[in-house]
């Protein structure tokens, strides 16, 4: 990997990490959900600093091309994130339903009491 490319990628990664931290700091990203992204950033950082390490790993696993491993890894991580997002959405839909029902029942009760 050329030094120029390394510097470019490092700048990109730092920008990525900075964005994550910025969003956490401003309460726009829950730390619970930020963890996975910080993990992704860490992997990116490690692969940029020591490309030989992932090169060795890809050989041990049996990839002919390093890029194949990186693409597969990236897709798998994204799949995982997508799937867990769907799970989170389902959980939130359930609690939203519960909230709507309970608030609506309560609202009716308050209205009925007022009428008396």
């Amino acid at each position, binding site marked *: 990997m050329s030094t120029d490319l390394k510097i470019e990628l490092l700048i990109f990664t730092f920008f990525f990490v900075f964005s994550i931290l910025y969003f956490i700091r401003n309460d726009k990203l829950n730390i619970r959900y930020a963890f996975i992204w910080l993990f992704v950033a860490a992997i990116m950082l490690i692969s940029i600093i020591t490309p030989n390490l992932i090169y060795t790993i890809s050989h041990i696993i049996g990839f002919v091309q390093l890029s194949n491993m990186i693409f597969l890894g990236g897709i798998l991580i994204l799949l995982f994130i997508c799937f867990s997002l769907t799970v989170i959405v389902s959980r939130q*839909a359930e609690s939203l339903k519960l909230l*709507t*029902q309970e608030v609506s029942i309560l*609202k009716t009760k308050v209205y009925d009491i007022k009428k008396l």
Partner: protein
Amino acid sequence: MKERKIIMKILLIIPAYNEQDNILKTYNSIIEYNVKFKSHYDVMVINDGSTDNTENICNENNIPHISLIHNLGIGGAVQTGYKYAKEKNYDIAIQFDGDGQHNINYVKDLIKPIIDLNADFVIGSRFVGNLSKFKSTKSRQFGIKIISFLINFFTGKKIYDPTSGFRAANREIIKIFANSYPFEYPEPSSIVTLIKNKFKIVEIPVEMSERQGGKSSIIKWKVIYYMLNVSLFIFINSIKKRSVK
């Protein structure tokens, strides 16, 4: 035993989404029936975030109603009714459509098996007996046949009208539905859950009329998508291990 006269608290849950043309007619038919036959069916309309005049009509005519602050769909609306029934300690809860499809005269037949302790859950069916002249369109009948077949395949019980929204539940099932009621395709899905948990389900013949206005919740071009989804739901519900009791 025959003289056993226990007053049962009975609630009609009427889910209504944009039913301004029908809701008052439906409500009046129940009140007239109560007066005529000295019955005591309580009514609770669940206004599922209607965007038309349903809310105003309910207020003006003193129709007991819960207005959901946001549209939840039929499953969420009906479940609200079951929650209310559980809270108010009703013995029997009946799902009754607000669009004039269901006939109040059959409620007594619907609750009879529950009162006689012959059933936990009763479905008013278009396809049992010959009462109902209106049996929906050919394509929809075919769809219902497939759903019926799938339920039979996965649970071993034949339900002829699994999509019927005219159903009565006893106290125990009210509690279960109040806690968990399927979001999507609630009618067939909930039947599968009940069969899996060994509840006794009875189907009785009822007469249904064509919708008197408004739109059915199942739109024609969505039928295939609906069928695929229902099949999946029946399958998933039938493999769910979790007992609801």
